[in-house]
């Protein structure tokens, strides 16, 4: 498939630190691409650079045919990117509903789509008018993902959605990610839980020290424990 997102030679500096040192990869349209790598490899920085929250100091980022590396974050968002940050960043003083109203931008909340979201995240329906700050960690993560899918977007960037969540909640998130995928939405997903990565990923890119050190099909990567060991420094059984 043709790539929806293409990063070519992307460098990012944070202050005087040179974090991304020439990142190259593509995200094919309609698939889920996993971005893996050790802590501190630069995954979050990559997603933030794509969103324009850090400025790329060199290289190009293209969404289909459009160069977005110089665009402001709101323009990148309006070009069709939705971002679920590692911190979830729900607006805790606002209700669940108000969080989604802002995420829908100019569109009104769509009942059919909400019903679809409530299907895998029933807690959001239950706490519809509660302040997001009162939700549990897992519920906040659901809200953060719901914000990204409340309207159809072209590309979802999701950063470690299962981090610190109970297994039951991880299951619901995997359901949701599979469902998003079935709907044909393109996803770039950072995930440390290898079982989750294996379940939802079509393709995989592995980062280390601010560079992509491996890119290929998920099935192939999942079958090669030696490669996993080498790139992620963790074997499957210790990873759980």
């Amino acid at each position, binding site marked *: 498939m043709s790539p929806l997102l293409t990063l070519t030679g992307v460098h990012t500096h944070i202050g005087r630190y040179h974090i991304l040192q020439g990142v190259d990869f593509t995200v094919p349209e309609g698939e889920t691409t996993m971005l893996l790598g050790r802590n501190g490899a630069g995954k979050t920085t990559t997603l933030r650079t794509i*969103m324009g*929250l850090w400025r790329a100091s060199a290289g190009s980022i293209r969404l289909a045919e459009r160069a977005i590396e110089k665009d*402001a*974050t*709101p323009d990148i*968002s*309006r070009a069709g990117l939705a*971002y679920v*940050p590692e911190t979830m*960043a729900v*607006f*805790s*003083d*606002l209700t669940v509903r*108000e969080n989604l*109203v*802002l*995420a829908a*931008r100019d569109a009104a909340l769509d009942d059919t789509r909400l019903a679809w979201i409530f*299907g*895998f995240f*029933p*807690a959001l329906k*239950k*706490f519809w008018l*509660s*302040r997001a*700050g*009162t*939700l*549990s960690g*897992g*519920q906040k993560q659901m809200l953060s993902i719901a*914000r990204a899918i409340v309207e159809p977007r072209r590309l979802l960037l999701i950063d470690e959605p299962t981090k610190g969540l*109970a297994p*039951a*909640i991880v*299951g*619901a998130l995997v*359901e949701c990610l599979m469902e998003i995928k079935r709907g044909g939405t393109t996803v770039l997903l950072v995930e440390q839980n290898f079982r989750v990565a294996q379940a939802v990923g079509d393709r995989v890119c592995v980062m280390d020290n601010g560079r992509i050190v491996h890119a290929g099909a998920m099935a192939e990567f999942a079958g090669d424990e030696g490669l996993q060991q080498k790139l992620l420094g963790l074997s499957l059984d210790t990873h759980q």
Partner: protein
Amino acid sequence: MTAIDSGAALPKRRADFIPALLPVALALAALPFIGSSSTWITLTVAGLSMGMMIFAMASGLTLVFGLMDVLNFGHGAFIAVGAYMAALVLAPLAGWTQADALWSGLAALLPAVIVAMGVSAALSIAFERALIRPVYGQHLKQILVTMGGLIVAEQLLYALFGPQLIALPLPTALRGSIVFGDAAVEKYRLLAVIVGLVIFATLILILTRTKIGLLIRAGVENREMVEALGYRIQRLFIGVFMAGSALAGLGGVMWALYREQVHASVAQELTVLMFIVIIIGGLGSVTGCFIGAILVALVANYAGFLVPKLALVSDILLMVVILLWRPRGLFPVTSR
């Protein structure tokens, strides 16, 4: 499908009403010390009206800090601008201001308020462009640059209107007192309380019932995420900056009429007080600013009567006590 609903684990947030009760508690606690109930009513209304004026002035300041982390020590300039605009507009309207009918007094104030708010808002655009935008994210520079801006604004006002005090008589219809039992309450103070309540209610309605308001509250909490959802926080900020400056201008009109004089030194005089109020309230919180302003003003009035020697430092003492209890203010909203 894994249906999960960990609702049982939901931590219920206690409604945080204690800070809102503080002014009531303070007023009741002061009563036995003051003794006479008529004096107490007079002092309390004086405190409330002063609090409302400070609230009008400081509400913009707290939102500007909350939204963009901007410490604007030049905010007071818009108070002074508002006050001079009132003097300018009211001078030729002496016919109305000196009439006995309430409606003509209010009719004279209306254009003064509109001009004061409009001019403050318009000047704030230039102020933001020239002084605030170049120093985003740099607190020390913000303080120095905006303080410099305040001094320049003050000198410009002296150059335009002269260094002398300008008298600003209160419209005749707003003079005098209304007597409740044996307590006399100045009419103008009642008007100030009403105006303050209207401003507070309007701000709360905007913040809770409109999309712009939701965006402002969301931006105070996490402006990156607001941008990542596709909104230009810069535009929102300029809007808030203008509205906050307009409110400072309105506060300037109210304050000048209360003092019945206009002078540019009011800008510096009130700057520290406004910062004390928004720190007490919790930076970024309009409700906090409202409660904080009332507390500061009540304490100032009670202390001025009971222990005049303490009156000068009463606001600082109040701030210290509140911050010992709640280090991020009464209503902490930002993570900063």
